[in-house]
C-alpha cells in the first residue's frame, strides 16, 4: 500500500512539474487571447491567419452565452475580445465592460477612418469608439436568374420601385412558367429584418434627435408597416406565417425562407452578402444568383438598415495590448481578403470593397452581384437606439409588432401606435426612476428634469409628410 502511495505521489509531483514548466513557457512565449464570438467554422481560419501574422499571439474562440459572459467579465475572468451587436453596445459600454478605444484607434489603424462612414457611426457609443467591425452588411435583393428566365421575365432594373417589384411578383404568381413548376415569389426569412429596411427607406425615424421620444407612430413608419402588410396580405408576394409553416413541412425544403430560396423554389430573397456562405451547402444555386439594390420608395433612394458584428476589448483584459493587435488585424488586407473569399458580408475595411470586381469570389463571379451589396452599405443607415430605453427590449417590441401585422392582429396604424406608446412609456418610467438618466435629460435639453416633461414634447413635434425624410 505504501508503495502505491509513493508511486502516486511521485506521479503527481512529476505532473505538477511538467505543468509548471509548460505554463511558464506559455506565459513567456505565447499570449493566448480568448474571443467571445459565434462558433462559425470560418472563425477557425480567421484565428489561424491571425496567429500566422502575429506569431506570438494565439486566439481561441469562446462561444460562451451572454449571461455567463457578463458574470465572467464582472468577476475579472472574461474573454479578452467580445463580439458585440448594436443592441448591446451601449449597455456594455456604460457598465464599463468594454474598453474605450478612442485614444488608440486612429493611430493604430482601426479608427473610424478605416471603415465605411455608416459603420463608423455604429462603432460608437456616447461619442467614443468601443469596437471595430469583423464584417459589415446591408440587405440587397438576390434573385434566381433561372426562375426569371422560366417566366420570361427581364432582370429587375438597377433603380426600381416597390411598385415594379409588386408587378414582377404578380406576374410570377399569376402566370405559368415554361417548366410548369410552382415558385414562391419572395422567400421571407425574417420579417423583422425586412421591416428594418422598410422603415428607414420610408424616411421613418425610431427616435427624436435627443432620444426622448419614440417616433415609430409617424406617417412614415405606418407607411412602411403598411407596405409590409400589403406585400404579405394584399399582393401575396411574401408568405404569411401560416403559409411559411405549411411550406416548411412539405417536400423537405427546410424550416426557413433561406432554404426555400437555396433549393431553387423561390424567385427572390432580401438578404445580406453573407448568404454566399450558406451556398456552400447549396452549390447548385450559385450559377443562378444575381442581385440588385432594394427598390426605392417614391423618389427616395433605398435605405436599408446597416448591421455589423464588431469586436470590442474587455476593459479588464490583461492582454489588452495583444487584443489591440487583433483589431489591427481585422482592419488588415489579409483579413479582408478572407472575408471577400468566404463571402461573409463585406470586409470591414472599405479599401477591399471599392467595387464589385474587388469582391468576386468562387461563389459568384459576377461583379454586379457584389456591387449591389456595396451600394446597399453605401445607402444604409445604422439602427437607431435611445439611451433612455433598453435596446434589446425595443427589439423585442418591434418583433411583436411585426408578428401582430403578419397575423393580422392589428392594423399597421394600430400596431405602430401601440409600439410607440409602449416605448415612450418605458422612456418615461426609466427617467422617473434613474437619476443618471435625469442628468442626461438635463444635459440634452438644458432644462431641469420634471416628471411631466413629456406632456409638452409630443405636441411640439411637427408631423412630416409620409415620404419626407428628416
Amino acid at each position, binding site marked *: 500500500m505504501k508503495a502505491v502511495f509513493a508511486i502516486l505521489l511521485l506521479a503527481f509531483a512529476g505532473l505538477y512539474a511538467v505543468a509548471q514548466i509548460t505554463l511558464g513557457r506559455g*506565459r*513567456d512565449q505565447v*499570449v493566448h487571447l480568448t474571443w467571445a464570438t459565434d462558433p462559425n467554422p470560418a472563425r477557425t481560419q480567421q484565428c489561424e491567419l491571425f496567429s500566422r501574422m502575429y506569431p*506570438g*499571439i494565439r486566439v481561441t474562440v469562446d462561444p460562451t452565452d451572454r449571461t455567463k459572459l457578463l458574470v465572467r467579465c464582472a468577476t475579472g475572468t472574461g474573454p479578452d475580445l467580445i463580439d458585440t451587436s448594436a443592441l448591446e453596445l451601449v449597455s456594455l459600454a456604460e457598465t464599463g465592460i468594454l474598453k474605450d478605444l478612442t*485614444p*488608440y484607434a486612429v*493611430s*493604430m489603424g482601426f479608427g473610424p477612418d478605416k471603415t465605411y462612414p455608416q459603420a463608423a457611426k455604429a462603432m460608437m457609443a456616447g461619442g467614443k469608439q468601443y469596437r471595430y467591425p469583423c464584417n459589415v452588411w446591408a440587405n440587397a435583393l438576390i434573385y434566381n436568374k433561372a426562375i426569371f428566365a422560366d417566366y420570361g421575365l427581364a432582370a429587375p432594373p438597377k433603380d426600381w420601385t416597390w411598385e415594379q417589384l409588386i408587378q414582377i411578383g404578380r406576374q410570377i404568381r399569376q402566370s405559368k412558367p415554361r417548366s410548369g413548376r410552382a415558385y414562391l415569389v419572395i422567400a421571407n426569412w425574417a420579417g423583422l429584418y425586412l421591416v428594418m429596411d422598410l422603415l428607414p427607406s420610408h424616411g421613418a425615424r425610431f427616435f427624436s434627435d435627443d432620444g426622448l421620444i419614440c417616433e415609430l407612430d409617424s406617417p412614415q413608419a405606418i407607411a412602411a408597416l403598411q407596405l409590409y402588410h400589403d406585400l404579405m396580405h394584399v399582393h401575396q408576394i411574401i408568405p404569411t406565417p401560416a403559409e411559411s409553416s405549411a411550406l416548411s413541412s412539405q417536400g423537405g425544403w427546410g424550416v426557413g425562407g433561406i432554404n426555400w430560396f437555396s433549393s431553387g423554389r423561390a424567385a427572390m430573397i432580401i438578404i445580406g452578402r453573407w448568404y454566399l456562405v450558406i451556398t456552400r451547402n447549396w452549390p447548385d444555386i450559385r450559377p443562378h444568383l444575381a442581385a440588385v439594390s432594394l427598390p426605392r420608395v417614391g423618389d427616395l433612394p433605398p435605405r436599408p438598415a446597416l448591421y455589423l458584428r464588431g469586436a470590442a476589448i474587455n476593459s*479588464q483584459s*490583461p*492582454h*489588452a*495590448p*495583444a487584443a*489591440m*493587435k487583433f483589431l489591427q488585424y481585422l482592419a488588415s488586407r489579409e483579413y479582408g481578403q478572407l472575408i471577400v473569399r468566404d463571402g461573409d458580408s463585406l470586409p470591414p475595411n472599405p479599401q477591399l470593397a471599392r467595387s464589385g470586381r474587388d469582391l468576386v469570389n468562387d461563389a459568384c463571379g459576377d461583379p454586379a452581384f457584389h456591387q449591389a451589396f456595396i451600394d446597399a452599405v453605401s445607402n444604409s443607415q445604422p439602427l437607431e437606439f435611445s439611451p433612455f430605453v433598453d435596446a434589446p427590449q425595443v427589439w423585442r417590441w418591434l418583433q411583436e409588432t411585426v408578428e401582430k401585422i403578419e397575423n393580422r392582429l392589428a392594423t399597421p396604424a394600430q400596431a405602430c401606435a401601440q409600439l410607440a406608446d409602449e416605448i415612450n412609456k418605458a422612456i418615461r418610467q426609466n427617467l422617473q426612476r434613474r437619476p443618471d438618466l435625469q442628468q442626461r435629460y438635463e444635459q440634452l435639453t438644458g432644462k431641469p428634469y420634471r416628471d411631466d416633461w413629456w406632456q409638452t414634447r409630443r405636441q411640439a413635434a411637427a408631423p412630416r409628410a409620409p415620404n419626407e425624410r428628416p
Partner: protein
Amino acid sequence: MKTLQILGTGCAKCHLLADHAQAAARALGIEFELQRVTDLQRIMEFGVMVTPALAVDGQVKASGRVPSVEEIKAMLR
C-alpha cells in the same frame, strides 16, 4: 538612479506589482523613480502584450505576472 516602470492600465495586479517593486528597491537601498505607464500604445512600444509588466531602465524584466519582492530584488541587483 534606476527607473522602475509599471506597465499596465491600472488593474489590481498593476498596483500589487508597483508595491512589490518599491519594496524590493527600498530593501536594496537603491535610489529609484517609479513610473506608471498606462497608455496602451506606449506599453506596446515596449513589446509587452500581457500586463502587468515591469521594466527596469527601459528593459522589460517580467510581463503577465506579478513577481515576488525577492524575484524583483534579483532583477535589480
